[in-house]
């Protein structure tokens, strides 16, 4: 008993080509199904209405995590727990492990995929900010071929993306991270597990001779899409890291955020949180860049 699902037809294509063709044919009546932790909930609560689901589970390698030249490639079907447990990821971008572990709860993370987290384009999603500061791209496979999109350009609004009908997000490509760089992700939620972010901030800094050579800051849950705080990052260039500097950058990041008020927090509170998280994320990123373990 409980909530029911609508009548649906499930398709389990065995390769991407088939998947794209199916999606193209079914159009608005179909959605891609990955872990279902977002989509099945929406279907049960009647927020989404479709009659066809195209599962990616049978597609070979859709969940593969591998080195791709100097880059790291994470298949869209990789679950948060698999990513968090992967030693390559832990070396390559430890902050992604933190972001994965900050999501939902253990038994959800065994289902929740990185592709679903990105493609659902929910503003509070935990993985996009860190992937954006890491300069990640997503690979999209459509009926007429592949294309790559920088993740920061992928989001078009709440639950809206750059994906065209018939396209599948196949993998996330994270380029080799610059030398002497460090990244971090800080999430603030109202409960310590199974809670969506009130705000989330990711930061990456590249150090050179004791100064910040370059920085990137991305904000989650405080704008219609995950968002780079470019001016805040610019203010850090060629500067010596200090609490004052980070506070200054944090204040700029606040101005770049565009939060709304909802059940998790007012816009004003979210701005306060962005300020705190930005500073903390920067402090951690610098510590990591310097090879220090986080506190």
């Amino acid at each position, binding site marked *: *008993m*409980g*909530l*029911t*699902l*609508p*009548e*649906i*037809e*499930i398709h*389990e294509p065995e390769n991407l080509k088939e998947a794209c063709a199916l999606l193209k044919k079914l159009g608005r009546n179909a959605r891609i*199904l990955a*872990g*279902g*932790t977002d989509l*099945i*909930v929406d279907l*049960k*609560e009647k927020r989404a209405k479709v009659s066809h*689901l195209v*599962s990616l*589970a049978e597609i070979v390698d859709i969940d593969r995590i591998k080195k791709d030249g100097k880059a790291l490639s994470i298949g869209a079907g990789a679950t948060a*727990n698999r990513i968090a447990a992967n030693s390559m990821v832990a070396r390559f971008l430890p902050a992604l492990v933190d972001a994965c*572990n900050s999501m*939902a*709860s*253990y*038994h*959800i993370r*065994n*289902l929740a995929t990185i592709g679903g987290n990105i493609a659902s384009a929910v503003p509070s999603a935990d993985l996009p900010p860190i992937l954006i500061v890491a300069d990640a791209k997503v690979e999209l496979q459509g009926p007429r071929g592949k294309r790559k999109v920088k993740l920061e350009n992928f989001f078009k609004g709440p639950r809206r993306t750059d994906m065209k009908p018939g396209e599948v997000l196949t993998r996330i490509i994270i380029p080799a991270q610059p030398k002497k760089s460090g990244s971090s992700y800080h999430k*603030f939620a*109202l*409960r*310590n*597990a*199974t*809670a*969506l972010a009130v705000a989330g901030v990711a930061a990456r800094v590249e150090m050179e001779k004791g100064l910040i050579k370059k920085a990137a800051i991305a904000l989650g849950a405080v704008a219609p899409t995950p968002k780079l705080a470019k001016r805040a990052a610019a203010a850090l260039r060629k500067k010596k890291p200090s609490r004052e500097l980070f506070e200054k950058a944090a204040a700029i990041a606040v101005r770049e955020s565009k939060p709304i008020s909802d*059940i*998790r*927090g*007012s816009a004003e*509170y979210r701005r*306060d*949180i962005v300020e*705190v998280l930005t500073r903390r994320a920067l402090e951690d990123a610098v510590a990591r860049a310097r090879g220090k373990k986080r506190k």
Partner: protein
Amino acid sequence: MQQVITLTVNGEEHSLAVKPNQTLRDVLRNDLGLTGTKRGCDVGACGACTVILDGEPVASCLLLAVLCHGKSVETIEGLEKNGKLHPVQKAFINHGAIQCGFCTPGMIVGAKALVDRNPDPSDDEIKEALGGNLCRCTGYTKIMEAIRNWKRYVDTDEPPVHDYDLDKHETVGRSMPRVDAYDKATGKAKYIEDYGFQNMLVGKILTSTIPHGIIKKIDTSQAEKLPGVAAVITGKDVPDRMYGVSPARYDEFVLAKDKVRYIGDEVAAVAAVDLETAEKALELIKVTYKQLPAVFNPADAVKNGAPQLHERYKNNINTRVNHHFGNVEQGFLEADHIREEVFVGNHVYQSPMEPHGAIAYWEGDGTLVLYSSTQVPHYLHYMMANVLDIPLGSIRIIRPTVGGGFGGKAETTPLDLCATILSKKTGRPVKMMYTRKEMFQHGRGRHKQYMKMKIGVKNDGQITAFDYTNYLDGGAYSSFGVITAYYAGSMLPTSYRFPNYKYDGYRVMTNKPACGAMRGHGVPQPRFALECLLNMLAEDIGVDPFEIRKINGMDPDTRTINDLDIRSCEFKATIDAVRKASGWDEKYGKLPPGKGIGLGTGGFVSGAGYAIYRGQVQQASQKPREHTFIKKAVFPHANAVVKVTEDGTAAVLFIGAAEIGQGSSTVLTQCCAEGLGIHPSRVRIRAEDSDISPIDLGAYSSRVTLMGGNASMRAGKDVLEKLLPIAAEMLNTVTGELEAKSGRIYVKSDPEKYADWAECARIYFNNNGPLVGTGWYKPPEGLGGDYKGAAVGTSPAYSFGSSVCELSVDLETGKVDIQKFTDYHDCGTPINPMAVHGQVEGAIVMGAGETIMEDVVYNSRGEIVNPNLHEYLIMTIKDAPEIFSGLVDSYEPEGPYGAKEIGEGSSLPVLGAVAHAIKNATGIWFTELPITPEKILKALKKKKAAVKE
């Protein structure tokens, strides 16, 4: 269209035809009958449906079964191998990690998966693994303890000897594992949703989509035509009698006859062959409303010209209490210091992990059989008789295992009523279950209270006067609210002596779901306010917060200003004990900014002195009488029968007491066994069925241990009385020289001279026929004063407690981390210390969550914004504090073996203690619940700005 899949479940391969829209959970439950996997929420937010899929725990409610083709699933049912429990199961049983048991299968499965991948998990790793498994009962303390100790049970079945066991008796005072723990740890316990009958229909209720309006027309014709629909009912098909809780305020129709008063008010119901068809039928019912203006808070609702919800409640005031004891004006004149503050509570929902449900069918002789997830089988019984106008004798109520209640299942639900009426109409069994959202809409949660309190004290802290006004936001119907409004006033003078006391309470109707009785019924918010106020005053006048409580604290054998008779009372001992155990003196005033420690206390009834309805147990054909106060307990509130098996080796205790997770079946078994003089493992309890067990009024007002315990103990002793002459003859002595224990009836002066208890029982049967004993408990007559409302708050005994909370506040974000609780309680002499501590731990975590995160939020239309377990925040295992629960020595003469309550009273000190600790950490008093990070940060910023100026 069905697809055939293969699924290996608990090592067995199954070939199953499933529909693409079936979840793994539903296939396990419905197609394979593996009902140990539970439905708590449907949307991944509770963890009750956790199973292990190819080695990893997952939420089976989010997984489509067709996509599990070829995979291997492990459920709770698969953990027991060759008749041997998994060590994690044993640990859960032995450490008391199970209460209602509804979260247990998911929790154990999650823990099993954890120890498979990491046999020595750290505390943080345990918490990380189970962050998605919500438990509303245990406060997670004993769950942590069980998993920490799981390895001890790899090769043994030995239960641990708990250091808190009392050694006075073999049965009472011992922390024996729960009698239902094995069933709950293995997924065998059957809850309402796990039952089904042949030819059964599924029912569903259509509810109002507007907050206030007149029903102009309901068109059910399309719904009726839908194939598979067996019946559709609306207001015209239900009795003209209204129902409710307090006889003076029955104000709900089974389905709305003319008016709807909140979003969620019941309008129509259908019964159909399956859930999908029932849901489709609801969509086809067309209701035309004339919208009326609505009102959503008490301040607006009492204004002249405000929309009126019910004709009979002028200015929407549903209950008005004006109590004035002594002379507060005079008392304030005598005060050296006066402080007045306004406090605002929050709207908290019980959120038991198990959703409500009911199954009804009618037998050929006209007997109604009703299964219900209720905590008050007798009041449900009574109310069904009343609404349907049939004798109690024609109704059989069955209460399956209940997955938590906390007051949310303390009244007759629309499911009970609609399932019954639909079943009558169709001649088939009808099953109805709430979804999580429907539970929130049905409501009956805690009243949000707006409290203005003024207190006067002497220089030394002695209270001279107390004046308090309270507006309770009642929602659209009365529910328990009359009693709530009285309790909110009557329960403060339990722990402190007030020479002058004034209480004005107004329960106000608003266009929202009705509020009812929740753990601590009406009292936690006023208690929060009073405890804060006392701590504020203590600061104002430089008196120690413990001292101010001791100066005013209650002593044993005192009649309170509102005529409550306090007997045993170790309130002051609890204060001293928490002070010492928490290390208060080393910490208070000495902690760095952002760290805080705080104190709260409380006192509560141990069973309501009077039943909810007055007079004799009624024949239903009698109309409910006008509310006349009869100052008599009248009929026995708890009744037990013990029947000994003919071979004398076991006794069965029959008592209709509602086990809802709090542990009553275990405690009553212990009381009965002690009375009988045999080991509790030889006593079985049958409490589920009104045809079998005599009346117990139910699990409310913390009454079962005291009242049901007395009845069970007496029934046991009654049996023993019958055996003593036989033993005396065998031992050549007189009955007065005999005592019974451990299955032996022995000579007191020479315990080695004994007769076998079972042998005596066998002889009794062979000579006299059935060996049966009875016992009952009636509260003392004449409890309470003579003023209007004096009955509410009366009790045979009162419990007391004190709590110290330690926490830290992130001064940059406002986030509170509740780290530790130290609690001491006076619950009399505990029957089962482990169960007592379990209640305290659960109450602390519930209360702490209530203080800092729980709140049902409404939008401007009166619609709930967060009717789910993802956004209505109850604490997870990662949020729960470490808890030390201790007990002070106490003996309550009116209780069985000296025991009194713990279940509700333990929630009272919590809120004030948290607020005090937050003040201590931040320098700021927060008077509005919940004290969210946002409120804290805002206040901190304001304070900073003020300092700068």
